């Protein structure tokens, strides 16, 4: 749909991609960015997996919003993920809308945008596309795969699906399955999109207006789940928005209302409503243990050689510590060398994107040790 500024690879041209649903896709376009240089031994590649509404612009300016990359704090020359040392790859996930094939793209069979004819995808499908992109880039195995939130889910599926291609893996604020509460919040978001009359059953691409209102409400709801009650109270309390008293009406009297409305309206400029439906669905379908008769540890048995690091945040109620610790204990039971910590933070789920010195320290130590054991110069 947009984002033509970045790199795009066209994959699965000859052999189509078979999805978990059984449907096939061919070809598959992938929007991606790379930073740094692949070394001659091809041992310094790092894949970063983005979250639900993230994108490949991890350390470069977003083509639509003009904002800096979403993890520039961590990724760049001389930074924690030092692009002078590592070849960092980040791609837009399957089903998303910044250069990668998704419901917004033209279905070559009909000549029309896919809309809801686009097949339902899973987190593992996203990972299969990333693996094909790495083949295309000449990357055999990864020094590290790293992701937070949905990016962490992709990291987990990398461990189950391509363990032989991994040296280390980092999972931040994530989960190996979606709980009823996780699914419930996503369903509210989807229903908001579908209740927007401009949605037109998902065929809005040729219309004058898009389901912006529905998508904005979906984003507002989701955004609440990314923060903690404490963070909201500290940031806004009951403060009023540019007024001295409540107006006895339904304007955004409170700062928190104004903030959420802004978050919602800014989001629709950079995201496709159908992509939001498909990606939230992929997350809801995640239940890794289910494929292993309910034993999560069995999912990681083939990954016993991969150095792993799992981090949760104390105020994250979306993917709380228990979900993350379950992952760490399952890995441990499978013989995977894993480190885990719960970082004390007031910032809720979003903490993984923010300046958290304890997280940085742990990540830095983990990455440096992983690079050293990979034989990379320090």
């Amino acid at each position, binding site marked *: 749909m947009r984002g033509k500024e970045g790199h795009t690879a066209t994959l699965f041209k000859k052999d189509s991609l078979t999805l978990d649903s059984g449907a096939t896709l061919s070809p598959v376009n992938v929007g991606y960015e790379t930073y740094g240089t692949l070394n001659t031994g091809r041992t310094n590649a790092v894949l970063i997996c983005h979250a639900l509404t993230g994108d490949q612009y991890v350390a470069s300016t977003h083509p639509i919003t003009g904002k800096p990359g979403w993890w520039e704090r961590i990724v760049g020359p001389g930074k924690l993920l030092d692009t002078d040392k590592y070849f960092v790859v980040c791609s837009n996930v399957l089903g998303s809308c910044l250069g990668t094939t998704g419901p917004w793209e033209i279905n070559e069979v009909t000549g029309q945008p896919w809309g809801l004819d686009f097949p339902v995808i899973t987190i593992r499908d996203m990972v299969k596309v990333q693996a094909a992109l790495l083949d295309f880039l000449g990357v055999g195995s990864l020094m590290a795969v790293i992701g937070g939130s949905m990016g962490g889910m992709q990291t987990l599926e990398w461990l189950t699906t391509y363990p032989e291609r991994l040296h280390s893996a980092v999972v931040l604020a994530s989960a190996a399955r979606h709980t009823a509460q996780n699914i419930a919040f996503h369903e509210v978001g989807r229903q908001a999109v579908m209740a927007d009359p401009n949605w037109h059953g998902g065929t809005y691409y040729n219309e004058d207006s898009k389901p912006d209102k529905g998508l904005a409400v979906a984003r507002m709801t989701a955004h609440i789940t990314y923060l903690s009650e404490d963070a909201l109270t500290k940031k806004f309390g009951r403060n009023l928005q540019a007024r001295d008293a409540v107006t006895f009406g339904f304007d955004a009297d409170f700062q928190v209302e104004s903030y959420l409305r802004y978050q919602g309206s800014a989001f629709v400029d950079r995201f496709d409503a159908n992509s939001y439906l498909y990606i939230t669905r992929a997350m809801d379908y995640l239940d890794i243990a289910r494929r292993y008769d309910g034993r999560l540890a069995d999912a990681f048995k083939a990954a016993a050689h991969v150095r792993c690091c799992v981090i949760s945040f104390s105020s994250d109620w979306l993917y709380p510590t228990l979900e993350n610790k379950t992952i760490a204990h399952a890995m*441990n039971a499978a013989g995977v060398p894993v*480190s885990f910590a719960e970082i*004390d933070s007031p910032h809720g789920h979003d903490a993984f994107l923010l300046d958290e010195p304890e997280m940085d320290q742990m990540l830095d*130590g983990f990455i440096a040790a992983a690079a050293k054991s990979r034989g990379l110069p320090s």
Partner: protein
Amino acid sequence: MTKSLRPDLQLIADLIKPNSRVLDVGCADGALLNYLVNKKQVDGRGLELSQQGVNACVAKGLFVIQGDADNDLHEYPDNSFDYVVLSKTLQAVHRPRDVLVNLLRIGKRAVVTIPNFGQWRVRLSLLRRGRMPVTKELDKAWYNTDNIHFCTIHDLFDLIEAEGLTVKEFVPHTKAGKKLSMSRTRANWTADQGLFLLEK
């Protein structure tokens, strides 16, 4: 590359066979684990409560899960380690008996060290002052100490016997980590610390 180990940790390290799998419960900054990994080619894992400790371990390239003996040991599978080490921590857990049993469920052997509350200075302090002893090693008052289940060398022997466990080695030692060769009873008077190598 590896600094010399604190003498009391060295006593533990000396009991551990090379190339074994070791879980260090309450591994602090990973000094013992790091030594075992580098000098004895051990496959080592840690459990540590403090973020500072976890970060120090991870920076050394060690693998450590944030947690504690009371709450996390049950997550570890049976017989998944050759040794489980619990150094000067038993007196700080809520359920010492459960922890002791868990150590030997997870590991083929357990290495447990305790500060000996039966040591004569401690006894004398209680006798003379009539107040709970506060020593250099155990320097907090009774109301804010982490050490909630103090025991003596005799006490631990009793528990070990009650649980039907076997003491393979008993190494009473001083604070400085100097081994003391003496009977159990004399050690209960003299040793600052007791080290036990246990089996089922």
